[in-house]
C-alpha cells in the first residue's frame, strides 16, 4: 500500500499555477456557487423541462389511447436526458470522479501534435459520437418492438442514464487519468493476471461474435436485392477513389473528398434502381445470402490487410459524414411528420416469451436485445482508446463521455420510433424467419394472421404494395432489423421529401447507411482483433508481437476472419432462421463486456477509497451481471428448445437417433444435422462468455473487498502535472468560464501555451 487518496487536492504542491498566466481552472467555490444559484429564469426552465417530460411519460405509460404520437417519445427522451445530464452526471462528477482542471490531461502533458492532441470539446464530442454510434442502436430497438413500445422506451432511457452513460463516462475518465490506457491494460492492472487474462480472452471472443452478427445483418438486408447489392458494392470503388484522391491528389482535403464521395454514393443509390430494373442487372446482382456472406468474408480479409489509407480511412470519413447528416435529418423528419403509432404499450410476447422475432420473455431478453443505446460494452473500448488522448480539460469528460452516450441513446429512440411507425402486420411479416413464413407472401399472411394479434389483419396486397414501393422483389422475412428500419425511415422521410414516389430511394438510402457503418465496423473490428491476437500469441511466440511482420499479420487476420466468417455462414445457413437464434448472443456478449468494464471501474473506485459512492458503478454492474448471467443460463439450461441452445440440440439429436427425416423447421436430414452442429457452437460460446465474465466480475469483487479492508488501494494513475491551458467544460461556457476565457484571450500570443482549434 503506497500512497492513499484523499480527494483531489492532494497534489496541491505540484499543481501550483504559473503566476504570469491567468487561472487554468474556474475556482471550485465560484463554480459551486454558480451551480447553486437558482435564478427565477433557471427555475422556470427546469420546471418546464420536468413538466414536459412528465406529460410525455404520462401519455406514453399511463394514458391508453388507440394511438400515440411519436413526438411524445422525443419529448420524454430529451427531457429525461436533460435532467439526468444536469443532475445525475453532475452528482457523479462531484462525488465520485472529482475531476481537477488544474491537472494537465494526457493531451497536454504527452502532446505530440498527432495522437495526443488537445481538441476542442465540441469537435471531440462529434468525433467520439461518430466512433461509438453505429448499427447497434439502430437494430436492437427494432427487434424489441415486438414486445410493445413501452418496455424498449423505458429500458433505453433509464438504462442509458444509470448504466450506459455511466460506463462510458467512468471508463473515459479513468483512462484519461492513466495516459489513455486501454480497457485491457486497466483490467490487468486492477484485477491481476487472472482477471486481466480472462478480460482479454472475453474481449477477443466477444469481438468475433459481434462482427459476425453485424455482418449477418448486412447479408440479410442484401440477400435477393439487386438494388442493395449494387449500391453497397459501389461503396468499395468509391472508397478506393477517395483513398487515392487523399493520398496523391489533394492530401488532407477531408471534407471536400467526403462531399464528392457522398455525391457518388447518391449516384450509386439512384443507379442501383436503374440497374436493378434491367434484365442483365437483375441477373448479375441478385445474389443468394450464402454468396453475399462469402463476399463479405473475402472483403473483410482483404480490407483488413490493405493499408489503411486505401480503403479503411476513406470509408470511415464517408461513414462519419453519413452518420451525422442522416441522424440530424431523421430527427428533423420525425419532428415534422410526427407519425401516429398503433403498436400497443406492451404485447403478450413480453410475458409469454413466444415472440416470433426474438424468443424469450421481457426479463432478461429485452435487456440483451437492446444493448447499444442503453448499455454497450463495446463503448468501453472506444472510451479507453482514442478519445481520452484528445481531451483538453478533465471536466470535459462529463460532456463528452456522459453526453455522447445520451446522444447515442437518442438515436436508439429514433430507431424505435421508425420501427413502431410501420404497420404491425408488415413488421411481423418482415421479421419472422423464413422457417415460419416459408419466405412467400401467402405463407407470411397465413403466419402473421395466425399469430392472433388484436388489430392486425395483414393482406397479400399490403405486402406486395410495400415491396414495390421500396423497390424490392419481396419484403417477407427480411430479418435482422435493418430492412424494417429502412422501411420505417423511408415512410418517415417520404412524408417530408418526395412523397411515395421517393420511398424506394429512401429505403435504399437507409440500407446503404446501415451497411456502410457495419462494413466499417467489420474492417476495423477485424483489424483491432488481429492486433489483440498478435499481442496474445506474442507471449508465446515473440515474433508475432512485430505488427509489421507481413506473414504474422496475415495469419492472425485469417484466424480472426475464419472465426467470424464461420459464425456468419452458420447464421446464414441456419435452418432455424439465423438472426433470431444468434441475436441474443450478440446482446449477451456486448452486455458482458459492459459488465467487465463496470467491474474494472468499480475496482478502481474502491482503490480510490470512494466506498460511499461505490453504488454508482456497482448498481449497473449488478444489473448487467444479473441480466446477462440469467440470459446465458437460460440459453444454456432452458428446457424450452426455442430458448435453450442445448435443449434444441438434444431435441434434434434425439430426432436423428430415432431415424426421423424432418423435424420442426428442418426439412431434411442434413438440415437437422446442421441444427445439431449450430446449437452446439452457440451453446459452447454461451458457456465460454459466461464463465469468463464470472471470473472477471469475481476478481473485481475480490479487489474491491481487499481495497475496502485496507481503506483504499495502490495508486495506478499517472503522476499529476500542472496544466497550462484553459477551456470551458460543457457545451456552453458559464459566466465564470467566459470571464477566464477573456483573460486568456488578453494574454499576448507569444506567451500563451496554445490550444488547438481556433
Amino acid at each position, binding site marked *: 500500500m503506497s500512497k492513499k487518496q484523499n480527494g483531489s487536492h492532494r497534489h496541491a504542491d505540484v499543481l501550483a499555477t504559473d503566476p504570469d498566466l491567468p487561472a487554468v481552472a474556474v475556482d471550485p467555490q465560484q463554480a459551486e456557487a454558480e451551480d447553486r444559484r437558482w435564478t427565477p429564469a433557471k427555475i422556470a426552465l427546469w420546471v418546464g423541462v420536468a413538466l414536459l417530460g412528465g406529460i410525455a411519460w404520462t401519455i406514453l405509460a399511463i394514458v391508453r389511447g388507440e394511438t400515440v404520437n411519436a413526438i411524445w417519445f422525443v419529448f420524454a427522451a430529451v427531457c429525461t436526458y436533460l435532467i439526468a445530464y444536469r443532475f445525475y452526471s453532475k452528482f457523479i462528477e462531484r462525488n465520485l470522479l472529482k475531476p481537477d482542471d488544474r491537472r494537465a490531461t494526457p493531451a497536454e502533458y504527452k502532446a505530440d501534435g498527432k495522437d495526443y492532441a488537445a481538441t476542442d470539446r465540441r469537435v471531440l464530442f462529434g468525433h467520439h459520437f461518430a466512433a461509438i454510434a453505429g448499427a447497434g442502436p439502430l437494430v436492437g430497438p427494432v427487434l424489441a418492438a415486438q414486445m410493445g413500445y413501452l418496455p424498449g422506451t423505458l429500458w433505453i432511457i433509464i438504462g442509458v442514464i444509470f448504466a450506459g452513460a455511466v460506463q462510458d463516462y467512468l471508463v473515459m475518465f479513468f483512462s484519461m487519468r492513466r495516459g489513455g490506457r486501454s480497457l485491457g491494460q486497466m483490467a490487468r492492472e486492477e484485477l491481476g493476471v487472472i482477471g486481466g487474462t480472462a478480460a482479454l480472452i472475453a474481449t477477443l471472443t466477444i469481438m468475433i461474435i459481434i462482427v459476425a452478427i453485424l455482418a449477418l445483418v448486412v447479408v440479410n438486408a442484401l440477400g435477393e436485392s439487386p438494388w442493395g447489392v449494387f449500391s453497397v458494392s459501389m461503396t468499395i470503388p468509391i472508397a478506393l477513389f477517395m483513398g487515392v484522391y487523399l493520398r496523391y491528389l489533394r492530401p488532407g482535403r477531408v471534407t471536400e473528398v467526403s462531399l464528392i464521395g457522398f455525391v457518388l454514393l447518391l449516384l450509386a443509390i439512384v443507379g442501383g434502381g436503374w440497374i436493378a430494373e434491367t434484365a442483365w442487372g437483375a441477373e448479375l446482382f441478385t445474389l443468394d445470402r450464402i454468396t453475399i456472406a462469402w463476399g463479405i468474408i473475402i472483403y473483410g480479409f482483404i480490407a483488413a490487410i490493405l493499408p489503411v489509407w486505401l480503403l479503411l480511412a476513406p470509408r470511415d470519413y464517408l461513414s462519419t459524414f453519413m452518420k451525422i447528416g442522416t441522424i440530424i435529418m431523421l430527427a428533423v423528419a420525425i419532428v415534422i411528420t410526427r407519425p401516429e403509432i398503433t403498436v400497443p404499450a406492451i404485447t403478450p410476447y413480453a410475458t409469454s416469451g413466444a415472440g416470433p422475432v426474438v424468443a424469450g420473455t421481457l426479463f432478461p431478453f429485452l435487456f440483451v436485445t437492446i444493448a447499444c443505446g442503453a448499455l454497450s460494452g463495446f463503448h468501453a473500448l472506444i472510451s479507453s482508446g482514442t478519445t481520452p488522448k484528445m481531451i483538453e480539460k478533465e471536466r470535459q469528460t462529463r460532456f463528452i463521455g456522459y453526453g455522447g452516450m445520451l446522444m447515442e441513446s437518442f438515436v436508439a429512440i429514433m430507431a424505435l420510433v421508425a420501427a413502431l411507425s410501420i404497420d404491425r402486420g408488415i413488421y411481423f411479416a418482415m421479421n419472422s424467419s423464413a422457417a415460419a413464413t416459408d419466405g412467400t407472401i401467402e405463407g407470411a399472411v397465413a403466419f402473421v394472421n395466425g399469430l392472433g394479434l388484436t388489430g392486425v389483419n395483414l393482406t397479400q396486397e399490403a405486402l406486395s404494395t410495400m415491396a414495390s414501393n421500396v423497390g424490392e422483389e419481396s419484403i417477407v422475412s427480411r430479418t435482422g432489423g435493418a430492412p424494417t428500419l429502412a422501411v420505417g425511415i423511408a415512410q418517415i422521410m417520404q412524408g417530408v421529401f418526395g412523397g411515395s414516389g421517393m420511398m424506394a430511394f429512401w429505403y435504399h438510402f437507409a440500407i446503404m447507411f446501415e451497411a456502410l457503418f457495419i462494413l466499417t465496423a467489420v474492417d476495423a473490428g477485424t483489424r*483491432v482483433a488481429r492486433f489483440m491476437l498478435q499481442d496474445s500469441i506474442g507471449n508465446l511466440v515473440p515474433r508475432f508481437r512485430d505488427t509489421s511482420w507481413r506473414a504474422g499479420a496475415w495469419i492472425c487476420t485469417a484466424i480472426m476472419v475464419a472465426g467470424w466468417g464461420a459464425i456468419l455462414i452458420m447464421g446464414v445457413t441456419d435452418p432455424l432462421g439465423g438472426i433470431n437464434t444468434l441475436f441474443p448472443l450478440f446482446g449477451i456478449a456486448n452486455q458482458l463486456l459492459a459488465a467487465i468494464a463496470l467491474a474494472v471501474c468499480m475496482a478502481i473506485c474502491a482503490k480510490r477509497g470512494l466506498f460511499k459512492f461505490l453504488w454508482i458503478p456497482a448498481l449497473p454492474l449488478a444489473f448487467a451481471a444479473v441480466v446477462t448471467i440469467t440470459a446465458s443460463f437460460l440459453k444454456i439450461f432452458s428446457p424450452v428448445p426455442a430458448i435453450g441452445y442445448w435443449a434444441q440440440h438434444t431435441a434434434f439429436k434425439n430426432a436423428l437417433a430415432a431415424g426421423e427425416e424432418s423435424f420442426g423447421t428442418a426439412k431434411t436430414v442434413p438440415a437437422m444435422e446442421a441444427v445439431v452442429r449450430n446449437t452446439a457452437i452457440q451453446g459452447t460460446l454461451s458457456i465460454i462468455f459466461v464463465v469468463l465474465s464470472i471470473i472477471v466480475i469475481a476478481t473485481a469483487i475480490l479487489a474491491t473487498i481487499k481495497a475496502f479492508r485496507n481503506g483504499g488501494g495502490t495508486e495506478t494513475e499517472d503522476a499529476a502535472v500542472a496544466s497550462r491551458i484553459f477551456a470551458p467544460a460543457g457545451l456552453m461556457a458559464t459566466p465564470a468560464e467566459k470571464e477566464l476565457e477573456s483573460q486568456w484571450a488578453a494574454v499576448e500570443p507569444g506567451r500563451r501555451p*496554445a490550444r488547438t482549434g481556433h
Partner: protein
Amino acid sequence: MSVPQVLHRARDTARELAWLFKGVMGENAYQAYLDHHERTHPGGPPMTVREFWRDKTDRQDANPEGRCC
C-alpha cells in the same frame, strides 16, 4: 442591430459551423500538428501536408482504432 451587423454575425456563425464540421471530420489535424510543432520544436522543419497525412495513415496502420457496432 443594423443589417451589416446581422450579416456579419451570420457570417461568423457560418464560419464557426464550418470549422466545427471540419474538426469533426478530422480535417484540422494538420493545422493542429503545425501549431504543436511551432510551439515545441521551432528548430527542425515540420512535415509537409503530404508527409503528415501519409504519416497519419501509417500510424493508423500500426494502431487500429475500433469502430462501434
